[in-house]
């Protein structure tokens, strides 16, 4: 998502601090000698400000606390921001329904709705991903039960139980393509050969299948949302009374939010390399580009490169699970006090992640669903007014 210089515009974007809209207004005013901004212009400016504020807030919390990025709580705030902007945008479309019927607005809005549909599939894929995390959480809960701190004493049996759950978790967290080899090493308590069995059996360990077809790809879906997404040209802005800017803004938010969700949550064929150009002249571009860079940086970190989701809690699960696995592999019985304290600490950390997931996953899933419904409602309304408007009379 590199920042690009604004090109092909008849409106010069020389002043970084000024919004495109006020610039345009000044131009018109200087031509027509008006002094009052129309309510439509005010509405569009308020929208720019709103988007800007929302994303500044999101990026500020990340800057002040790097741990916040892509945590369940932060992701929920991101979706809140999206929903809030989406509602404002929907109001703009409704208030300007006369305008959106005329070219080039009809085309611009039509393209926006096409992108929306693609986002709906991303929402559904994310819902599957959240369910997958929920499955992982179950293995974690078994670990917590096995190594429960209320336990009288931690014995070999408890560790064996925890280790088994951790192994199941590891398999569950692997990408499908890697899971075969691990399965062959999986211990069964009695003689039964897993090798050469129906690959469907993998499902028992993979713990979840996606609701989309096998060839569906989140990366491709993002690319197709990003396709041909370019800032409006100066003449388009003029011809649409600035509405094209609002649509571009919403398009960009849509793309960014979907991209961030795919970055955070496991889904089929994740991939973050999406070309997205936002001119820095838009006030909201700065925080969005900052967040984008932070997320990209995170994805490049060595310990996260093979992760199937950048959600902070997933990372914590991985860390806790690895730590506890190492501990479980190295303990001798009876436990030394030092070791026991170490285990208790590991369990405590794990319990915290579990709690965060317990508190956050359901609301997050509801929110993703809400985003789905709202995108859809706005699209339906928009298409309705586009349809109604076309005609000889």
């Amino acid at each position, binding site marked *: 998502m590199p920042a690009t210089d604004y090109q092909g515009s008849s409106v010069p974007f020389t002043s970084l601090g000024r919004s495109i809209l006020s610039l345009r207004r000044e131009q018109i005013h200087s031509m027509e000698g008006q002094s009052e901004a129309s309510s439509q212009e005010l509405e569009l400016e308020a929208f720019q400000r709103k988007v800007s504020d929302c994303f500044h807030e999101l990026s500020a919390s990340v800057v002040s606390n790097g741990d916040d990025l892509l945590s369940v709580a932060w992701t929920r705030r991101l979706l809140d921001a999206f929903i809030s902007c989406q509602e404002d945008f929907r109001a703009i479309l409704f208030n300007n329904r006369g305008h959106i019927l005329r070219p080039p607005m009809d085309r611009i809005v039509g393209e926006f709705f096409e992108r929306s549909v693609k986002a709906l599939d991303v929402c559904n894929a994310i819902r599957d991903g959240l369910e997958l995390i929920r499955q992982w959480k179950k293995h974690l*809960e078994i670990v917590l039960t096995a190594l429960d701190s209320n336990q009288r004493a931690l014995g070999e049996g408890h560790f064996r139980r925890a280790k088994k759950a951790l192994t199941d978790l590891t398999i569950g967290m692997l990408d499908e393509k890697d899971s075969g080899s691990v399965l062959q090493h999986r211990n069964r308590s009695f003689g039964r050969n897993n090798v050469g069995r129906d690959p469907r059996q993998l499902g028992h360990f993979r713990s979840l299948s996606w609701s989309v077809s096998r060839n569906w790809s989140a990366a491709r879906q993002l690319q197709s949302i990003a396709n041909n997404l370019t800032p409006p040209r100066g003449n388009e802005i003029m011809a649409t009374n600035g509405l094209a800017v609002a649509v571009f803004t919403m398009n960009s938010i849509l793309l960014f939010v979907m991209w961030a969700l795919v970055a955070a949550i496991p889904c089929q064929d994740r991939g973050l390399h999406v070309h997205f150009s936002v001119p820095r002249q838009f006030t909201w571009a700065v925080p969005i580009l900052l967040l984008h860079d932070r997320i990209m940086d995170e994805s490049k970190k060595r310990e996260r490169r093979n992760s199937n989701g950048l959600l902070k809690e997933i990372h914590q699960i991985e860390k806790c699970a690895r730590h506890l696995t190492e501990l479980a592999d190295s303990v001798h019985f009876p436990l030394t006090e030092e070791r026991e304290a170490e285990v208790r600490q590991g369990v405590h950390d794990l319990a915290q992640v579990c709690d965060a997931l317990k508190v956050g996953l359901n609301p997050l899933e509801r929110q993703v669903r809400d985003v789905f419904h709202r995108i859809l409602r706005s699209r339906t309304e928009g298409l309705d007014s586009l349809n109604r408007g076309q005609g000889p009379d």
Partner: protein
Amino acid sequence: MASHKPPPPPPSPLMADNTNTNTNTNINSNSGEDKLIAVARHIAKTLGRTETMTDDILQIFSTFDGRFSREKLSDKVDADDPTAYAAFENALKSLDRRISHYVSSDHPIWYDSSDSAAFLDAIDELVATVRDWDHMSGDKPVAACLDRAEDLLQQAMFRLEDEFRLLIERSGEAFDLNQLNHHHHHHHKNNYSFDSDDQEGDDDEANFDEDEQSIPVARPLSDYDIVIDALPAGTISDLHGMAKRMVAAGFGKECAHVYSSCRRDFLEESVSRLGLQKLSIEDVQKMAWTDVEDEIERWAKAANVALRILFPSERRLCDRIFFGLSSAADLSFMEVCRGSTIQLLNFADAVAIGSRSPERLFKILDVFETLRDLMSEFESVFSDQYCAFLRNEAVTIWKRLGEAIRGIFMELENLIRRDPAKAAVPGGGRHPITRYVMNYLRAACGSRQTLEQVFNDNGVDYHRNADNPERALSSTSLSVQISWIMELLESNLEAKSKMYRDTALSSVFLMNNGRYIVQKVKDSELASLLGDDWIRKHTAKVRQCHTNYQRSSWGKVLAVLKLDSSSLAANGLAKSLRDKLKIFNSSFDELCRVQSNWVIEDDQLRMELQISVAGNLLPAYRSFLGRLQSAAELGRNAEKHIKYSLEDIEARTNGLFQGNGRK
């Protein structure tokens, strides 16, 4: 570490009933009271799922009979007794031997029902022993024993989990058409305790086959009122026995996880065998509509099978395996069905989101009706708290389909409104849009009840009301919707009628279309939707067109034939009559020539028009001819000026509206 004397309280005397255990040698057979107390204690333990419950039950016993004093009933081991833990040790040793024998076995324990029973008994005893001694964990040797006991329990649970998986997977394999494990399956078939009674029950419904237990849903279904027993009753009770032990030992999560992942795979496999693909919203949008239609048919079948057969069967299976463990049952059931349900609903959603072109109405109605008819199944099969969201999703998507259907009618309105008045239909015939709209509405009325439901559900539609303020006051029921569409059609036809330069032809055009509309309304559901008043009003409109046609087309001709007193001045009478006749001949000739190319599509209407034209013309012409022949100076010459006899006139009018020019 041999015990010198029997340890005080027996771990669980009743447990011994069905085992060959030799651990409870301590019961003093002479003392009936001891036995009674042991039984009472056991009852309390068995019934009490928790410590406090057990305690409550003991309390009830103690107030019931003096013999059951709390002291006597208490199985608290005397910690000061040095021999006490030795008994524990002994019991544990024996249990270890028995359990390890199975845990290390290379063959599935459940191959042999006596093995499995013995294994479960040993587990029960182990759990009971741990519970008996748990309160003494402060005592070091006891604590060491407890550790060993828990270790043993864990090993037993792992084995139990594997056995559980094996047993449940086996049943999934049995439904595999490919029979990859066919040989394996057959080989061991007799070792599994298939309950033959249960199988019989399946035979008539499910087409179970000796070699190939195909899924019953594969054959054409008309009656969904069947339940599959995916697992034989014997297996189910085996699984229940295992689940009960795992839950009791605190391994309920493992058990539920194995259960739901196995059954989920089974269910998803079954759904995919119904021909249902996994499709994204975009996939559905990109598909050709005919392919979507095929998919909808498969979907409707799959949804019915899933909601009426597969899910209830899973529910039943789940309730039986987790009998008495309701929250494990509910949670597991949700996990089993979640994916398949969402797959089914996502497709319906994708259809609702898709294009709203009018020809899609009928298939979308199918989807709407399928979901509507399954709503009570959604309610009943997903009635518990964990499944509530699936229920809500179903309602949301069903409503969305209703919205899509209303959207399609809006699209139909647009289509009518936007149909341009480009080229006039030659001869004033019926316009294609009239036929399209009328046949469309008639077909739509085949689903009248559904549509009424859809339109009654409609909230305030601000768009529509803004367009047409009158309608804001009325309800948005189906009849209002239909009459609104009729209004749009009529005004579109009005606009099209203006294309004809000849006003008479405009009238013919409106007559043709109006007549068609009224007839299509009269002989269909539309009649009752639009009402008698509507039909009367529109019949009158057609009649008005008829009158307009007569006036604008034949008015002048009739005027020529009119003989008033001023024109009958004796002087130039003959000349005047001769001139009038000439004018009549040529204009009649011209009108007949032109109007024979016009069209009245309806035979009866054509005849009516021909008759009425003749009926107006003939009396006037007859009296004109009479006048002509009686004019003195013309005399016999009159005949040679008369081009058309009365019969000729009638014959020519019968040639009107044949649409000659159209062919």
